[in-house]
């Protein structure tokens, strides 16, 4: 029943953009309404499956998809992903009415609406797919749909390039998935996503399965170093699309990794270890790259890499636990990872919505030109701040809860006698490092954009956006707070998802609520809020009517906004620490002499993998292929010689 609701909502979502394709303001608005309705229905169905104990529902397609039997299934894991998908997609549909109105964008808005609905529906379909073929079909629809979302504004060269890199990356990933499911089919005789028989995972076959899974789904998830498409695509896309992509689309990659890897009942220990390593690299370098960015949306995009790293750390812990027969690690690792999936969907969408509001109001995303928006856009600032606190993993918001579960898992693993367990435990300090770096980065992001004074004269006078943009942000902020303050409410859903993700686990998985005692957090958070309120009331009472003066200028006679800390100066110390990986490009004229006439400094952090390795190598290879053109110079005689030589060579083989 709930599956029917979800599938119906998905179909409605897929079709929702058709009116908009016709063009016109009314039709586009109708599409938006349809999308919101579809999201509401689907979200309700998924939430029902998530929060009410119900057996997983399944539905087989009444006809064969070409030659393949295809079916859908709604279990706890699927439902856990479906809820954010529909939530963020629905909110984004509202948000887009203000950022990408049909009135201003014309036919482009209709096309964007259409592909938006298609992509959202495809995401939902990937998650409920019960077999490899259905998953592949939905996957590709999602990937291609997202491509059209990214290139919504294809008049800009940067957008085109970002779109192309995205398309190339996602296609490479899709090909890996082709290989993966072909292999699985060969081993099991069926495309169904059912547990594999034991004993398959060893040797080359297991390695191939693991690598194809991690590469194929990992490209979409954006794990380092497969993240190459992510920063460009996220900053090129319209903001509500960035929110959907970063909030939920990349999570579909995580879904795939979890779904497929846990089909293996006896994973080799190195699988978990490899995931932990990938997670660590993605987490630390993701946030380090984020620190070096000047483009607000690029910065947020790199934070997606970081958060995916955190999620993958949890999945890695769970895999290590599965290999070692430690159900508690599995429960905590996977529980933390899945909760972080939900949390990241909430706060990252919130942040992208906020960044979109900033870009919408000021016309720029460049940190070095922004500043002081907290006074002109107070609501946006407050909501962005909620997102910033949440993404930094700070109590009392939701980001803390999921990271806390992961910490519990790592600290549980420290008691282990196995090298794998101790290795997993080492991720705890790493997670602390990631968290602290994220904090630094969001002090920068929020502080530079919203605090102080504007750093450049912007053409538009910034102001808070309208309700269509603010309301989605408010909903997300409330949910962030709700999960942070009452995490125990979501724990049963997590348990259901974990149980569904780990088929054939020996006995019932341990209850997260028991091992984590999440409820305590709630009480502590409330006490903390009380203290906060008390101090706040007291201080505001004490400072009411306080006189105003200029910021203490240390005796300098003409302070100007240009003297404020800039984004790059704020991050300089940490960038120096990570110089070995980030390789920032610095240009400028150093300060010389006692009375320097002019000095300048500009730094930028290109993506090391993409800009320093992948693109140069590919360009060089493409240039090399031009030498091969000598093989076809247009001479018929030479072509006939090829025929003769081929014949002779093959005859020699006879």
């Amino acid at each position: 029943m709930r599956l029917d609701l979800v599938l119906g909502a998905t179909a409605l979502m897929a079709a929702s953009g058709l009116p908009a394709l016709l063009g016109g303001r009314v039709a586009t608005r109708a599409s938006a309404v349809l999308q919101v309705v579809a999201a509401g229905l689907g979200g309700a169905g998924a939430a029902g499956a998530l929060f009410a104990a119900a057996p997983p529902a399944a539905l087989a397609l009444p006809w064969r998809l070409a030659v393949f039997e295809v079916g859908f299934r709604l279990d706890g894991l699927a439902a856990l992903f479906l809820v954010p998908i529909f939530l963020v997609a629905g909110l984004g549909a509202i948000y887009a009415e203000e950022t990408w109105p049909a009135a201003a964008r014309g036919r482009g808005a209709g096309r964007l609406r259409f592909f938006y609905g298609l992509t959202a529906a495809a995401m939902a379909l990937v998650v409920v797919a019960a077999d490899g073929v259905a998953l592949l079909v939905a996957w590709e629809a999602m990937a291609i749909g997202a491509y059209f979302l990214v290139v919504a504004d294809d008049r800009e060269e940067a957008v085109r390039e970002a779109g192309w890199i995205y398309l190339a990356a996602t296609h490479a990933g899709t090909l890996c998935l082709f290989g993966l499911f072909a292999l699985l089919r060969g081993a099991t005789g069926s495309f169904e996503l059912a547990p594999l028989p034991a004993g398959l995972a060893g040797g080359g076959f297991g390695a191939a399965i693991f690598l194809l899974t991690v590469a194929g789904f990992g490209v979409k998830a954006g794990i380092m170093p497969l993240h190459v498409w992510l920063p460009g695509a996220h900053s090129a896309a319209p903001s509500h699309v960035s929110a959907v992509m970063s909030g939920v689309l990349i999570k579909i990659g995580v879904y795939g990794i979890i779904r497929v890897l846990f089909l293996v009942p006896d994973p080799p220990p190195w699988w978990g270890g490899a995931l932990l390593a990938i997670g660590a690299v993605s987490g630390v370098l993701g946030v380090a790259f984020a620190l070096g960015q000047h483009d607000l949306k690029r910065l947020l995009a790199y934070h997606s890499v970081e958060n995916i790293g955190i999620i993958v750390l949890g999945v890695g812990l769970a895999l290590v636990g599965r290999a070692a027969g430690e159900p508690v690690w599995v429960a905590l690792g996977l529980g933390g990872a899945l909760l972080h999936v939900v949390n990241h969907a909430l706060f990252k969408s919130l942040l992208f919505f906020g960044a979109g509001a900033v870009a919408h109001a000021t016309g720029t995303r460049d940190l070095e030109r922004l500043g002081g928006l907290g006074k002109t856009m107070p609501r946006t600032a407050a909501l962005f701040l909620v997102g910033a606190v949440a993404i930094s993993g700070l109590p009392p918001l939701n980001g803390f809860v999921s990271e806390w579960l992961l910490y519990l898992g790592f600290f549980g693993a420290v008691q282990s006698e196995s090298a794998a367990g101790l290795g997993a435990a080492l991720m705890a300090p790493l997670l602390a490092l990631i968290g602290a770096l994220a904090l630094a980065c969001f002090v920068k992001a929020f502080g530079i954009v919203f605090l102080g004074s504007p750093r450049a004269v912007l053409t538009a006078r910034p102001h808070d956006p309208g309700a269509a943009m603010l309301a989605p942000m408010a909903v997300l902020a409330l949910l962030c707070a709700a999960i942070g303050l009452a995490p125990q409410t979501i724990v049963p859903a997590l348990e259901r998802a974990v149980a569904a993700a780990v088929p054939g686990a020996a006995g019932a998985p341990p209850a997260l609520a028991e091992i984590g005692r999440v409820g305590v957090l709630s009480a502590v958070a409330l006490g903390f809020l009380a203290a906060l309120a008390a101090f706040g009331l007291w201080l505001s009472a004490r400072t009411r009517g306080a006189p105003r003066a200029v910021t203490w200028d240390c005796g300098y006679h003409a302070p100007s906004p240009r003297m404020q800390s800039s984004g790059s100066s704020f991050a300089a110390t940490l960038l120096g620490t990570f110089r070995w990986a980030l390789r920032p490009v610095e240009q400028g004229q150093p300060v010389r002499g006692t009375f320097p006439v002019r000095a300048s400094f500009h730094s930028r952090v290109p993506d090391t993998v993409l800009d320093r390795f992948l693109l140069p190598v590919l360009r060089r290879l493409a240039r090399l292929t031009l030498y091969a053109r000598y093989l076809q110079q247009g001479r018929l005689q030479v072509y006939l010689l090829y025929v003769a030589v081929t014949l002779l060579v093959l005859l020699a083989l006879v």
Partner: protein
Amino acid sequence: MPWVIDLVLALVLAANIRILGTSRLGVCIRAVAVQGVLLAFLPLLLHPDSRGRTLVIALAAAAVKGAVVPAMLFRALAAARIRRAIEPFIGLVPSMLACAAATAGALLFAAKLPLAPGHGGTLVVPASLATLFSGFLVLTTRRKAITQVVGYIVLENGVFIFGMLLLDAMPFMVEIGVLLDVFVAVFVMGIVVDHIRNEFSSLDTEQLSALKG
């Protein structure tokens, strides 16, 4: 009469060398015509107890390969009013040596293949392969469009020689179809050569290398 067959085939091989060894287009075409006529004897020699259809094939081959096709080539040559020199990519002597090498190779290769009792000891298979590769040599080392047609005909002649072994196996219709196809192919090539001459005022295939990569 294996020695007669071998004699004819030896003459065919000699024609190959003649084609590759001359620098004059006219000689080249004439050698091809001679080769065609020689080939027309093969069905009669290889199937002495044959019926009327063999005779028809022999006549048709003689007509197509010995008369019509050379006539078409001469016509094109006359219309083109080009220099009658062949201008090969590699010299005439190397061409002839390569032809000899191809002949030797064909003998060696043919020795690996078992033959039916009636065909043992004749030069049919090596001559066929040698002619085939001579055709390739002409195709790959000659510059003019007409010589390329010549090369194609020589190549086809090689195939034809082998086909004579199978005169009994191949239905009459097919044999005639094959001959017809060859004729039409050369005919179409002739038309294209005409157009090349019109477009480029030349038959040099060096002009025909604008499409690359």
